[in-house]
Every structure is written in structure tokens, then in C-alpha cells.
């Protein structure tokens, strides 16, 4: 009787919770896709994109060397073919000084590239290595053609993978030119081909 009561009590009071150790595994998948987009940047040599003002002052004198002003750019492209184009505006009020576009020398050269840049990434096009400003027209034309991305090595901060393009504007200090100011804008564009 006692035994029976104990069993009953046990059955009534105790709820049996059995913990079964069944090995189980769940899984999830992350499919990582990294898409590299086309990147082209043109900056000044301070790595900023502000336009550059080139001011050239001429004081005619015997034996005076030509006056030069520079606009130098850093170019970066991960595109295998690219082009740096330029177009100019009209010369403002040329009659005031007598300066013509043919009086302004224009030379495109490649500067000292960054240490992680590919120096062979591009070449000066046409006659722009040494010409006069009239060679530039009001329509964009290539002054540098690129045949490779500008980086030669990884550069996580993109500080030393620039391809440098120098633009020099030169005017002789000729007494032919009358006092005054003339201006011309040259617009550069870096595009993927």
C-alpha cells in the first residue's frame, strides 16, 4: 500500500522533463560580391578639385625670359583606357593687349608620378607636348591618352597612385603687347574610353 502510494505521488507530483542530447547543426550563407566601379578623378596637386587660376604678369624688357604659368593635375583612373581632354574658351578682349592665341605657348608634359603609379599609363597626344594655345579649340580634344589604369600597386589611401600631367602656359615679354588683361579658360575632362 505504501509503495503504491509513493508511486502514485511520484507520478502526480513530478513532471518528467527529459533532456535529450541530439546533435544538430544549422547553417547560413553570406554570398559576398564586390563590384568595382569605374573611378576617374582629376585634382590639383593638393588632391583637391578646385579650379586653378594661372596668372601670368608680363613686364616687357630687353633680355627678359618668357613668363610661364602652370596648371598641374593629378589623374587617377582604374579604367584601362582613358583620355584627358581639353577645350578652351575664346580669348577675352584680345584687342586691349594685342595678345593672340598664337602668342601663348602651351606645353603638356608628364610630371613625376606617384610612387604607386604606372608611369606608362598614358602619353601626351598629338602636338600638345609643345604648341600654342590656338591648337586647342572650343571643342574637347585629347591631350593625353591613357592605355592602362594609373595604379601600379595597391594604395589604400590613394595618396601615391597619381599620374601627373603638367600644363605650362608661356608668353614672351614683348613690347608689342599693350598694357591690359586678357583671360582664357581651359577646361579639362578625364573620361573613360
Amino acid at each position: 500500500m505504501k509503495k503504491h502510494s509513493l508511486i502514485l505521488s511520484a507520478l502526480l507530483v513530478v513532471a518528467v522533463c527529459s533532456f535529450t542530447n541530439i546533435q544538430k547543426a544549422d547553417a547560413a550563407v553570406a554570398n559576398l560580391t564586390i563590384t568595382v566601379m569605374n573611378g576617374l578623378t582629376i585634382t590639383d596637386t593638393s588632391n583637391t578639385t578646385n579650379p586653378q587660376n594661372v596668372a601670368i604678369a608680363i613686364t616687357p624688357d630687353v633680355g627678359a625670359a618668357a613668363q610661364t604659368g602652370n596648371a598641374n593635375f593629378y589623374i587617377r583612373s582604374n579604367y584601362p583606357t582613358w583620355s584627358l581632354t581639353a577645350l578652351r574658351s575664346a580669348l577675352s578682349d584680345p584687342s586691349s593687349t594685342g595678345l593672340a592665341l598664337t602668342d601663348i605657348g602651351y606645353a603638356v608634359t608628364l610630371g613625376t608620378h606617384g610612387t604607386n603609379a604606372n608611369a606608362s599609363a598614358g602619353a601626351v597626344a598629338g602636338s600638345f607636348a609643345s604648341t600654342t594655345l590656338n591648337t586647342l579649340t572650343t571643342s574637347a580634344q585629347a591631350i593625353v591618352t591613357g592605355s592602362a589604369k594609373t595604379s601600379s600597386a595597391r594604395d589604400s589611401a590613394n595618396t601615391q597612385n597619381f599620374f601627373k600631367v603638367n600644363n605650362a602656359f608661356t608668353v614672351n615679354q614683348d613690347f608689342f603687347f599693350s598694357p591690359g588683361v586678357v583671360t582664357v579658360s581651359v577646361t579639362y575632362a578625364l573620361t573613360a574610353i
Partner: protein
Amino acid sequence: MKKSKLNLFIFQTVLIILFLSNFVFCIKTQAQIATITDNFTVNSSLVISDATTEANNPTLNVNISVTPDVGASAASGSANFRLRTNQAMWTLTATKGAFSAGTTGIAQSDITLALATSAGSTANASAGTRAFVSNTLNNITTTTLVSGTAKTSSSRDSTNTNNYFQVNSTYSINQDFFFTPGSATVPITYTFTSP
């Protein structure tokens, strides 16, 4: 006379005893005993779900777009999971699949995986310990990310909404001009097991 009274007394006593015994018998026969045996079986369970949708065994697409630019910070993407288990010991591992660089020039050493953990309000934040903090993919084949030493719940949560142990995995890459346009892909499988 005395004898007859004695006999009557005995007779009456027997009747009373019989009546009472019958009464008790009736009570006994009217009582029923029901026995219910409740067996609550708690099985082992491990669930890995998407931290955003709570979908189980998710396949997440982590898409990172790299647009090289000066001064651009690293591009990143995340795959965040929630773990729930009542097992005392558990492990979360990552297994890297086949890497395809495509035309990008991206190497596995260019991609960094970083791990962070958190926990829901009814979860045990100490249930698991990061065995992995950060590394590049070239150093990952099958790697233990989190080692679990306790069930993930710290208190009751009838709907299992806040008893998750969350693992955030973030993939990042520098937006370097060295990488050429195209796409690189690699699958990472996360396996949640109990030993």
C-alpha cells in the same frame, strides 16, 4: 432475559458494523483516482537566423560597391546573424568557398572580415566568446568565429524574440584605384553546431 438482551445487543452491534462497513464501501466505490503523467521533453535546438528578417538558415547577399576616389573610406557590407540554442556548448564557424576575382585584381588579402557580437534583452551576452576579431580572407579557410559555453537565453522569453545572441560580420575593402572594374565573389558559410 439477560441472555436475550445480550443477544439483542450483539445482533444490533453486528448490524451497525455491517451498515458502517457498507457505508465505507459505498464511499470507496464512489471515489475514482485519475493519474496523469506529463512528460515534457525538451529537445536540443540550434537556430541561426537573419538578424533583419529572422528567417532561419538564411542566404544573405552582401554586395559591396567600390568606387575609387581620393579620400574615400573603405567600402563595407555586413551579414548579421542571430543565434539561439539551449545547448550548453556550441560553436559558430565560418567556411570560405571558392574565391573568384573576375577582372578586378582583388586578392583575398584585400578583403577584411571583422566580427562583433551583441545580445537581446533576454539573452546571455556571455554565452559566447569571440574566437575571431578581424582578419583578411586569405587567412580564413574554416575558422571558429564564436565559442559558446552556455545556452543563449538568460531568462524566459515565450516568443523567443529577444533571446538571441547576435553575430555581426562585416566585410570591407579599400576603394583603391588599383582595382579594375568588374566583380569579385566568394561565398562564406556559417555553421552553428553543438559538440
